[in-house]
């Protein structure tokens, strides 16, 4: 596998490159992709960062034998259920995923997978940051259970009194939801944030304002993302870390000991490829769910979403 990864690196070809732009019919991507803005914005490295749900036809990856998966666990699981046979019968085409997604992978195709991890050697704490940007897509899938939000916001109390605080809260309908019911998420989320940083002056910014920032060296980006259901490789994290910011996304401070390949994503952060971990697969449970609900699009199936979310909340039980 490492040889294929090295060959892929050498070729430098990625579907995100402009030369392949006309090959991809963006109208064939699922509609929810457009709700991913800005977290799903494209960027480039030689190991082809891409969303599996954008693979609307099997030959789309012919330019690149490696895919660095950017999907969240929902669309990743959904893709595996629909395509696991293709992955098995196809020529070896390494799929790089976050290590915590490993238990979703069927046992018989685990040899096709490796893991990616982000390393940022210089990080600051929330209390050291001169500027804090609180980011969240205002959507229930992204923020998770709002009752737990106050607890997840507790770290914000460490913010230095002198630090400036920006709020970047683009609103989205429920990305994987089917109804257009009125949502109270924004009100609840704002109330919780207000309670977490009482008396602090905050500045609301738009995505465009954020994307104009060039120097984020003393900045901490606090992402309200509950888990990796929507996306595992968030463009805003890439953007922030590329400009020196620290993000609460679990980036490692040191290279993993089992790192077998790495490349720099910016002068501040690196992508490391590590072997697939020893885990027990829960794929059978997911297949069972599909068999009992054969006609449902899993991405929009709330019981499938809950099944996965519960599994990931109890992720320790995945380890062997």
């Amino acid at each position: 596998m490492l040889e294929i990864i090295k060959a892929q690196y050498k070729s430098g070809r990625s579907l995100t490159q402009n030369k392949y732009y006309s090959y991809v019919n963006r109208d064939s991507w699922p509609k929810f992709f457009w709700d991913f803005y800005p977290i799903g914005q494209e960027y480039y490295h030689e190991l082809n960062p891409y969303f599996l749900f954008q693979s609307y036809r099997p030959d789309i990856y012919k330019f690149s034998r490696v895919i660095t998966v950017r999907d969240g666990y929902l669309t990743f699981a959904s893709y595996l259920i629909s395509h696991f046979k293709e992955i098995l019968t196809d020529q070896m085409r390494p799929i790089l995923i976050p290590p915590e997604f490993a238990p979703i992978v069927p046992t018989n195709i685990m040899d096709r997978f490796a893991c990616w991890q982000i390393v940022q050697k210089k990080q600051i704490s929330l209390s050291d940051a001169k500027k804090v940007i609180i980011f969240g897509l205002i959507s229930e899938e992204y923020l998770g259970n709002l009752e737990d939000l106050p607890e997840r916001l507790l770290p914000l109390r460490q913010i230095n009194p002198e630090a400036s605080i920006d709020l970047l809260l683009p609103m989205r309908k429920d990305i994987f939801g089917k109804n257009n019911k009125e949502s109270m998420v924004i009100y609840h989320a704002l109330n919780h944030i207000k309670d977490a940083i009482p008396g602090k002056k905050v500045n609301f910014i738009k995505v465009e304002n954020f994307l104009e920032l060039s120097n984020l060296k003393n900045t901490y980006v606090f992402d309200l993302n509950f888990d990796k259901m929507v996306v595992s490789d968030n463009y805003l994290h890439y953007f922030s870390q590329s400009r020196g910011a620290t993000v609460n996304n679990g980036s490692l401070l040191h290279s993993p000991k089992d790192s077998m390949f790495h490349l720099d994503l910016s002068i501040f952060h690196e992508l490391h490829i590590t072997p697939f971990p020893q885990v027990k697969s829960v794929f059978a449970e997911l297949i069972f769910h599909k068999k009992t609900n054969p006609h449902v699009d899993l991405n929009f199936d709330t019981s499938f979403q809950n099944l996965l979310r519960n599994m990931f909340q109890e992720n320790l039980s995945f380890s062997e």
Partner: protein
Amino acid sequence: MQKIACLFSFKMSSWVSCQKIVFNLHKAYELIPGISLSNFNYSVDQNYDDIIQTAKDVVASKPNVIVIMDHKPHPLPLIQFIKIELNKKKLKTRFIFHIFGDFTLYYSEWDKLSKILVDSEVEFIVASDRQKKLIDNFLTPPHNSYVCPFPVDENEFHFDLKLRKSQREDWGIKPDDIAFVFTGRLSRQKRIHTLLEAFSDFLKKSKTQKAHLFLYGNTDHIGDQFLGIWETEGEYFRKLNRIYKELPTQVQNKIHFMGSVPNSELKDVYQGADYLVNLSVHNDEDFGMSVAEALCSGLPSILTDWGGLASFSNKNIPFAAQFISVKIGKASKLVHYDETVEILKKSLKEGHLKEREVISKDALNRFGIIPASKILENILHSSPSTFSKFGPLFEKILSAKSFTATPYITPRKNINELYREIYSSYVRDN
């Protein structure tokens, strides 16, 4: 008393150099005696109602001159409404447009605007002689264009060697080391990849351990769209990183990627450094604000002989700015590689620490706010000319653009005659 309406975006531009340009231009206007300035916000955040209101406010101020200082947003919608208001009130005024390097990106907007401005008193102010040549190629005589370099604020950038020691300590270099710096976007058209390779060759050929290269700024993904090169974010960074990783370790140790820093820190950088290096062949290179600031700080520069960078040539102090030849090749703009290496080598032997105060004084006399103010005063006192229309080259571009998104390259991706016709003004006459 001339009444001048200054139009610019109250919201800061994402282009750092443009933020400063507008700010400093405004200061230059403020110094002109016998005028009164009124400021009006014209920014991308405004909707049509806001723009109409701005147009009404501008005309209500009864200005003798309307000055469009900013590069963004394009003035077309605002001028449309201003003309309507002027016609309603049967007023006439003079328009002055400060032209930035991005003029050539907005032909269709300028075309529409030109139709509105027919028979009006219009002047274009550009920042360098070569940009004037480029703009004049689009205009029909009389050319209503003037040169006023984008001004540098002396309070920010001036000679101050006190800062040198601490900056070099921060960099961790010795007093007799030579520090080359680049400041700006690390962009394909700024030829950072060429700079890395040339710097590496220079180190090998000169066998020196004393030279360092400090690169300030983030990589971008602008590519070179005129020549059919579009990049995805991260692509140019990966290109540079791969070149860097393939260099010998001892060379890597001499190249320092510093990322973006606040503009206020650049004054220290320019004092700490020995040379500014800028190999830009950017289509928008109408001037070179970072070069002007470096020179005003007394820092000698090594520059490509391309576009507005040529305006930093100085016959009285030739070492203040040394030039590397550029030509428009078959498929790309070519920076003379051997000359780059040779100039870097030569720089190692020369040191201009003693002459830096002279460089700074001379540069401030040419690029400071006060000289800019005098140029602008002369322009305001000159008799205005009437605008008729853009000329045949402009029509030719519009026509080409209506057929293809890449009007400057052949189907084989070679540079075509149209590009050469426009950008021949950016290279030295043979």
